[in-house]
């Protein structure tokens, strides 16, 4: 009996980007001279040959339905030149070859409900992960958190009000796919996993689960006569790393899955070397559908940074100048024993000096 022939894939890999570039970009590839910021949401790049290209950046809902995608294309065809790109924070950028096209393009985007901004020292779109909409291990719904938060930060997206750019990220578990951010809003589990021992033997490859634990708190065990796993709850750091390879080790919990907020992650090499984010707040309720408690803390941190930061200081630069005690003082956030590092390399984070501000 013959099966229908399967079509072998064409392993073309990563496609050629030049075919999708605006012709002005193709012509001036590698020959740009300088750039300016004519207004929030707009960049102007000028090439060695005197050619100019204007970029208009807009925020979207990131999870796009085909109607919204076509709307973005319609705008691109009618008001821009039919070429777009997406930033790594999922903003859309339209490129046009004449200044006269900028204003009508901005108007069309805003009339359609998209938000123009996200350039220079603004708060850009929050980079985020999939959450309850699609992930298999999420503690929250990043898309919802981000929508609720951007509703409140929209003026900061539209304007250049901050000392320097602010990149915010969210993550739905402690693996933190959202990445480092000037401010990161991440799920923090606060209780060890609850194990469904009836399912472990059938669902989980036990040695890999044991190996996955960062603190060696998991060991094989016989429970009710069935092979299963047990967790040393005193050792367990509630990271949830065992949950992806073994879903019967349920880490998410309606009450105990909280948010933590981290600040000062910075990927750029500008001024200092790249930095990791640091814990500043925890125990924040995971409170759908609009997560007001998390947004309130983010806004509080942003307000203090805006008032106290100097031009060009990213959040990590600002805190390095004023010191961590002043950060906690100015934001009113509590500093606790949980803020003191105990992971590998922890001693490097301790103050081995008399450098203390009074």
């Amino acid at each position: 009996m013959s099966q229908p022939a399967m079509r072998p894939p064409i392993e073309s890999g990563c496609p050629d980007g030049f075919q999708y570039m605006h012709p002005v970009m193709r012509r001036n590839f590698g020959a740009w001279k300088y750039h300016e910021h004519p207004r929030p949401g707009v960049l102007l790049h000028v090439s060695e040959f005197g050619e100019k290209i204007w970029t208009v950046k807009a925020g979207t809902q990131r999870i796009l339905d085909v109607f919204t995608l076509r709307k973005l294309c319609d705008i691109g065809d009618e008001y821009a030149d039919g070429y777009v790109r997406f930033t790594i924070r999922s903003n859309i950028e339209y490129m046009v070859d004449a200044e006269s096209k900028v204003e009508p393009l901005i108007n069309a985007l805003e009339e359609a409900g998209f938000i123009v901004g996200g350039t220079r020292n603004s708060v850009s779109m929050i980079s985020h992960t999939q959450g309850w909409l699609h992930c298999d291990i999420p503690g929250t719904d990043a898309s919802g958190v981000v929508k609720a938060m951007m509703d409140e930060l929209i003026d900061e997206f539209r304007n250049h009000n901050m000392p320097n750019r602010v990149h915010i990220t969210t993550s739905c578990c402690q693996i933190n796919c959202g990445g480092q951010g000037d401010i990161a809003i991440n799920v923090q589990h606060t209780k060890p996993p609850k194990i469904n021992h009836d399912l472990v033997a059938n669902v989980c490859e036990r040695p890999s689960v044991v190996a996955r634990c960062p603190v060696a708190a998991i060991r094989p065990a016989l429970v009710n006569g069935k092979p299963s796993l047990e967790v040393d709850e005193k050792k367990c750091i509630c990271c949830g790393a065992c949950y992806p390879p073994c879903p019967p080790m349920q880490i998410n919990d309606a009450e105990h899955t909280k948010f933590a907020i981290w600040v000062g992650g910075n990927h750029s090499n500008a001024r200092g070397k790249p930095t990791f984010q640091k814990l500043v707040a925890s125990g924040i309720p995971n409170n759908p559908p609009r997560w007001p408690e998390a947004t309130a803390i983010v806004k509080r941190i942003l307000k203090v940074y805006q008032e106290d930061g100097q031009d060009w200081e990213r959040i990590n630069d600002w805190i390095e100048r004023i010191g961590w005690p002043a950060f906690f003082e100015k934001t009113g956030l509590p500093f606790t024993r949980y803020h003191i590092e105990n992971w590998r390399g922890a001693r490097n984070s301790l103050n081995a000096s008399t450098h203390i501000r009074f």
Partner: protein
Amino acid sequence: MANQHHPTPMLDELENGPWPSFISGIKRLRDEHPDERIQNMTNDLLGQLEHSYETRKGYWKGGTVSVFGYGSGIIPRFSEVSKAFPESREFHTVRVQPPAGNFYSTDMLRQLANSWEKFGSGLVTFHGQTGNAMFIGVNSTNTQAFFDEINEYGWDLGGAGPCVRTGMSCVGAARCEQSCVNEQRVHRTLLNRFTDDVHRPSLPYKFKFKVSGCPNDCVNAIERSDFAVIGTWRDDIKIDQEEVKNFVAEYGRDKVHLDVINRCPSKCMTLNEDNTLSIDNSNCVRCMHCINVMTKALSPGDDKGVSILVGGKRTLKIGDLMGTVIVPFKKLETEEDYQEMVELAENIIDFWAENGLEHERCGEMIERIGLVNFLKGMGLEADPNMVNHPRQSSYIRMDEFDEAAENYLRHKMEQRQAAAG
């Protein structure tokens, strides 16, 4: 006839406020899309999502789904509450590799939208955190059909699982004067050398390439990739002194001191009496700050190349790691230059495939075995640019120190001779 709509009182709250709402978008598919399959699928998706909001839990589980000939590229999702929400019971994501820099024509986006609504939910994201175009929501049967259709017009799947993953590059030389490298060429050269390792997971864990055109590192390559290629330059920062004077005239000397001179991390800049700028380039660390501020007056030099850093990753399992320098500077001009970069990547992946533990990222392996053993495996010499400072601990055996010192000095002499021609 469409199913009755699930009530979504919590999700409805996310239709309020000025930022564009993804919930409104999913509802549009449910209410306005002509295809009943999409109406029903998005209705049940909304139902399950509302259930998640009410119970504060996720209800998707993974599985094994791919397309013919590949072992990766699809993120399988099966609903754990499919009895209540049967139409979205299979809701896989198709990961598609975008071009470096995420460029699209509107024509191509429309073509992708047309294919997607034939087979999938109508939901798409540009892009996921790894860098894939994410086509979210398709059942197992239609996964193959959707892939077959878009694969015919030039699109291929990205990685998922323990394999080489989709790469990411900044906008780069296409639109940025700060770019020091042809990101398009680096990205495609690396990724398409490892196409087989993208499609057929057989490595210890994921391996990511990212390319940033300059040290601003707009794609977060140092922290988020196993192999970070960052554009840089060796000669002097280019200064247009007339533009420096214009900048001083506009902002004043004090502001130039505050924003530029004092913020230089290696204190290598001087604002002269006549409002021109001097830079001690031998002490410049190529941080980009002054160039970011004075975009017309300053720009990267002409002797461009890349720094390569290895081992960046996020938290799981041993904590976050930044990539570390293993190649301080490399020219990327000739075919041989690119070939050498590819060979380095091949050597790293081979060595890691051989020596990495299951689920151990390359950076974690380096942490476990030490950078020195890794360099030995790569045939690379120790270089002071690889460290923040030399060792502090005296607890080490120095058996072959004299030989290593001689090698270093001979190597330096060879470099000087090569430079002198």
